[in-house]
């Protein structure tokens, strides 16, 4: 929040003065009100159990993260550029392989990737869109520079918190919203629906859109309910759908109804037991054949995971240059690919300074934060790397930006990241702001909700 010179950075000016006038006790009361609101609405992360004490709240911090219009402008352009290029990359690797032929991305890294789906080759998708919903994780490392940490192109979650966090902030600080012009986020469900309808196969009349959930035992079930509810579409499970004569239908009390677009919150492997995992009852038998013949559109498409892989990540700047002929607006974190002998050597020599990640890992699991790890942990991790170097990458420990956060004894800086949500279909857009995640433990860099991170509302000020 503070500038290098030590003063309060200008976007925070007004809110900072508001905090100065607010006793700490009042702020804590507001936080409790927020928790109460979330619990009553059932806005919880679900871990299922017998006695009902099974629903965890993700900690909510009542101090917003604030971005100026200028800062946002750059981020927005950068995210749109990145997702546009990645969609072109996906289309290419399932069609003509030009980027591979040009020698920019190694062949085995694409076709040998376990997230690559040969079943999707030569399948033409409406408007050429693969990742209809993307979550780009960003961190700020200086006054002027943001890094992209990862591109989530499969089924990124968290957008319900963006909307609910705003909702609760409007209740807690109505006066703050009266004083500043904060760009609204509430139209996300409308935008999402509009984009989903735009990628429907050619149908007569209005296309039918549904949200496909793995079911009530899924940890993000609340978000699935929320999005279906806000868009006014059906929330279906695999068993509600069936395939017949080249179309997907849902079972309703009025008989079968054809489904045109499925916003699926189910991983690739579970979508179709005939093709992927035969033991899964979550999907729809025959779904893939309908996708291939163009009878239904899945959002996101099958096989997008190849583009958000941590090894492909290192090529994204080249991918942007190749397809768009532009310089990337947002930088990657400098990354060492451990399948290269010299980079592996360097990384192992600097084990105590770097952050190590599994190429296919997600959710902050399987990481080694060098400076924070014990000697024994480092040695154990080193053994794992040496066994299979290509499965790991390394990055420098970043001086992540912090944001003032309410902690036990007052307000203190805590590290944050930012996930804007990028929608593609009709056109590529980003809602202003995104999900700010905050590492609540002092000094910690891990913001994942599965590991004790919290969330904040993100404000983009209108100029």
């Amino acid at each position, binding site marked *: 929040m503070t500038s290098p010179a030590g003063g309060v950075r200008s976007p925070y000016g007004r809110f900072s003065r508001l905090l100065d006038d607010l006793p700490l006790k009042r702020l804590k009361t507001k936080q409790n009100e927020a928790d109460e609101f979330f619990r009553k*609405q*059932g806005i919880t992360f679900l871990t299922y159990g017998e*006695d*009902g004490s099974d629903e965890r709240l993700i900690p909510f911090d009542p101090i917003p993260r604030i971005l100026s219009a200028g800062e946002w402008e750059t981020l927005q352009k950068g995210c749109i550029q990145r997702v546009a290029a990645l969609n072109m990359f996906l289309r290419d690797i399932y069609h003509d392989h030009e980027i591979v032929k040009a020698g920019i991305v190694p062949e085995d890294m694409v076709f040998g990737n376990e997230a690559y789906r040969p079943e999707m080759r030569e399948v033409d998708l409406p408007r050429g869109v693969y990742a209809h919903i993307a979550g780009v994780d960003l961190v700020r490392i200086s006054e002027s520079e943001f890094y992209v940490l990862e591109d989530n192109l499969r089924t990124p979650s968290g957008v319900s918190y963006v909307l609910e966090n705003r909702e609760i902030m409007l209740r807690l600080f109505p006066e703050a919203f009266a004083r500043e012009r904060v760009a609204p986020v509430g139209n996300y469900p409308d935008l999402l629906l509009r984009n989903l309808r735009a990628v429907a196969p050619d149908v007569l009349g209005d296309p039918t859109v549904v949200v496909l959930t793995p079911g*009530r035992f899924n940890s993000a079930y609340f978000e699935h*309910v929320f999005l279906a509810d806000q868009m006014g579409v059906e929330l279906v499970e695999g068993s509600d759908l*069936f395939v017949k004569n080249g179309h997907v239908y849902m*079972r309703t*009390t*009025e008989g079968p109804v054809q489904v045109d677009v499925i916003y699926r919150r189910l991983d690739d492997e579970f979508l179709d037991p005939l093709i992927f995992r035969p033991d899964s009852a979550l999907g729809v038998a025959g779904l893939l054949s309908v996708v291939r013949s163009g009878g239904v559109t899945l959002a996101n498409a099958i096989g997008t995971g190849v583009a958000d892989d941590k090894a492909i990540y290192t090529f994204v700047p080249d991918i942007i240059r190749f397809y768009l002929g532009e310089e990337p607006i947002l930088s990657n974190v400098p990354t060492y690919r451990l399948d290269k002998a010299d980079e592996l050597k360097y990384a192992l020599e600097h084990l105590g300074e770097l952050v190590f990640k599994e190429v296919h890992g997600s959710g902050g699991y399987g990481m080694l934060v060098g400076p924070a790890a014990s000697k024994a942990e480092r040695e154990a991790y080193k053994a794992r790397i040496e066994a299979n170097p290509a499965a790991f990458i390394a990055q420098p420990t970043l001086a992540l930006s912090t944001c003032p956060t309410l902690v036990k004894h007052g307000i203190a800086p805590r590290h944050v990241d930012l996930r804007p949500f990028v929608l593609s279909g009709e056109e590529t857009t980003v809602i202003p702001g995104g999900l700010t995640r905050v590492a609540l433990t002092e000094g910690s860099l891990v913001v994942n909700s599965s590991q004790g991170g919290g969330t904040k509302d993100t404000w983009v000020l209108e100029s």
Partner: protein
Amino acid sequence: MLSRSAEDLYWMSRYVERAENAARTLDVSYRMSRLPSATGGEELHWRPAIEIGPDTTYFEKTYGEPSEANVIKYMALDLDNPSSILSCLKAARENARAERTAVTSEMWEALNATWLEIAGLNAAKLERWGYRSFFDWIKERSHLFRGVTFGTLPRGDAFHFLRLGTFLERADNTARILDVKYHVLLPEGEEVGGVVDYYQWGALLRSVSAFRAYRAAYRDAIRPWRVAELLILRPDMPRSLRNCFDEMIQTLEALAGAVPRDCHRLAVEIHASLRFAQIDRIVRAGLHEFLDDFVEKNNELGLQVQRDFMMAAPVEA
């Protein structure tokens, strides 16, 4: 609406109604066993409570001879008994969780709070709670759920499937409770239609909230055949078979749409048989046979509702 949603909602209200009815059944057994003229020991009053259910083998194997303690445990607390109060309210809450987009937040909160209150309840805690006040509380929670549904839910398909479940379950229960108690309440050798123990019949009427209604309707001593008439044929009694079918016919008409449905035809048939029936004829031909037949037809209607609305498409690849 999705077939699965319709099914979840239909069963949600059936479960709530079933829990309420279990509480009512236990309540009447409890009242009767404590009345001055109670004869025949514990078993006489508690066996009928389990005989209302479709199958007694599980009970006999697990609990043996029915007694106050074990019947209450079986019907209120036993999670292995799918019709126990706890099982039903747990299942209702599960269904509500699955249908968060179809129910209102007030409905969800009513079911959620109910379950959180009784999750983990055991025999010792229930005794401390007090049987009568526990039964009353269960009834209140059921009233609350119905009231909240009525007061907050739009009159669309969700509402109709909830109503259908409520009245189908209620009709089943009223018929069963009447059948079982009617025979218990007739002393050996006394003809159906004679004057029997006032207290015992009073307890039965109270268990279906019909004691005062009986007085208002007949202004007479309690006579078994009139009790039967009240609970089978009177259209103005909220728990009578006739009223349940008035409600179901209305609901099925609202759900009718363009396609004629077998369940509608079936419901109209049963409705007519109640609307034009006379109690003395029913009693002469055999009340037990009448009720038995009714339970079977009502059950068939329930299955047909599921076939018509909830299995809309063939299960095939």
